[in-house]
């Protein structure tokens, strides 16, 4: 506070006042709402779909398969139903697959950009950003056009088959789990590329030369030098990809055509069609706890710095 010749108490008050609007917004629109969701998750649904605030763990037990008040198919309660566990498991698997694929696809591009001449790096990065800022929903629509049974991909395949005189049946690509995975990878790929790029760009190029001078071949250099030094970027990218994949319902809604139900779809339906906000709140809290646990585990284990904010 060298430039502000006022009493420390005044400076503290000034700092607090500057922070106040942000604090109000974060508490009022993020922390209090999360608290409300937590309270609601212990509630119960009345026959009209309203929430009765009590304290019951029924919603959480139901998520884990132990239904105390809802029938499981034709079996009356109490009963065991793995439906929600399987939805949760499918979402986790999809999150994992998306993360691995985005690393495999994104790493070479991030590496290429980081080692390009400094004058061209910004343009290469801009090329990654343009699809990212083309609206999320519009990009899903593009994949609908490509994957439809009469869509672009099937037309190209049919044309190729025609050239080779092969019989061709249009493939059913849209409304499949594969389409949802493809959509997720496409939507979130830039969130993996940007942090990996940030960590790769910080590596001193003389390290590569040193490795080569010491007799390491390119693969060994990649494995023993580049990869370990870019781990913070991969960790940040993993969080930036995994968290939104777990928390979206629109990719599976549009490209999965209601065939693929993820935890995001489950939550969304409780607040709209199914009208069981208490159960939806419990699923939201479970989702939040899962993603927070993963984030904490990763940051404790590997740590990351400015990479998380690079996207």
């Amino acid at each position, binding site marked *: 506070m060298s430039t502000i010749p006022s009493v420390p108490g005044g400076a503290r008050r000034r700092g607090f006042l500057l922070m106040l609007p942000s604090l109000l917004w974060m508490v009022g629109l993020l922390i209090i*709402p999360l608290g409300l969701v937590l309270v609601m998750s212990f509630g119960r649904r009345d026959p009209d779909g309203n929430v009765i605030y009590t304290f019951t763990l029924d919603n959480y037990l139901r998520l884990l398969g132990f239904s105390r008040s809802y029938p499981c198919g034709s079996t009356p309660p109490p009963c065991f139903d793995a439906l929600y566990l399987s939805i949760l498991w499918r979402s986790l698997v999809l999150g994992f697959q998306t993360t691995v694929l985005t690393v495999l696809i994104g790493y070479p591009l991030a590496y*290429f950009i980081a080692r390009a001449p400094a004058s061209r790096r910004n343009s290469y990065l801009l090329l990654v950003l343009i699809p990212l800022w083309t609206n999320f929903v519009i990009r899903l629509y593009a994949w609908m*056009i490509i994957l439809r049974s009469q869509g672009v991909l099937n037309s190209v395949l049919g044309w190729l088959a025609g050239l080779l005189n092969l019989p061709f049946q249009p493939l059913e690509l849209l409304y499949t789990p594969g389409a949802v995975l493809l959509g997720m990878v496409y939507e979130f790929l830039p969130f993996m590329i940007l942090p990996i790029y940030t960590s790769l760009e910080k590596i001193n190029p003389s390290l590569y030369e040193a490795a080569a001078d010491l007799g390491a071949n390119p693969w060994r250099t990649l494995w023993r030098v580049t990869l370990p030094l870019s781990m913070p970027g991969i960790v940040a990218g993993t969080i930036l990809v995994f968290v939104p994949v777990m928390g979206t319902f629109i990719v599976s809604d*549009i490209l999965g055509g209601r065939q693929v139900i993820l935890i995001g779809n489950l939550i969304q339906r409780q607040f709209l069609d199914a009208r069981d906000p208490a159960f939806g709140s419990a699923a939201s809290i479970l989702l939040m706890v899962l993603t927070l646990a993963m984030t904490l585990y990763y940051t404790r284990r590997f740590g990351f710095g400015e990479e998380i904010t690079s996207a």
Partner: protein
Amino acid sequence: MNHRHSFWLYFTVILVYAFLYIPIFVLITYSFNSSRINVRFEGIVNLEPCGPFYWFCQLSRNREVINAVRNSLIIATLSTMGSTVIGTMAALALQRHDFPLKRFAEGSLYIPIIIPELVMGIGILVLFTTVFRGINTAFHLQGNARLGMGLGTVIVSHIAFSVPFVALVVRARLHGFDRAIEEAARDLGATEWITFWRVTLPNITPSVLAGALLAFTLSLDDFIITFFTTGPGATTLPIYIYGLLRRTITPEINALSTVWIGIVFVLLLVIQRVQQRD
């Protein structure tokens, strides 16, 4: 610093860029489709008015689209103004002052980054419905006087998720700020307020603008939070397109996407320029 990369690296890079751009190329191509149902490409449209740009002209007469665009722009503009001011104030506070609850305030800014947007959206939905129901019953509000979701709720919610990003961008710039020039201004007799307006603010303007543009694009792109906080008459473009995707879509929506991509492209070029000057 020129490196010779292997053939396979170049090959992979081209494939990845192709993967990123083929859908966008397809979208733009289909906005000139002569087929109304838009399932397969059946040649370039050539209808009066406007010939090949038929769908663009149809688009400009579509009241629903115009309303959605207008709502998107109103929401993005107002939420950007709010989040830029609030975020810049937060950045100044965190970088230059010590105050009660500082660690808590700083930590709270990370919530939108680590918590799934869906959970935030649900939370804000629950908050607004609870508060509005309470007020409506307490004051016996009827008909149009009843509080409900609309442009206001969307704007307030967009500010909530944009503030942290503005604060991060501005704070990064403040970190490298040479405070000697502020001291010089003070020594020359400028008041604190004048020093802020004439010295500090002009110096951090590029990062404030970069933060504002980021907030603007985040708001335009947002689907999930908007989905849960919007109401009658406050349909944004992403929400409108989402509704159409579940029915039939004409090439009008492609034309709209093409215009959108063009605008985003120009905005990104502007951001790039601003940051390079920074």
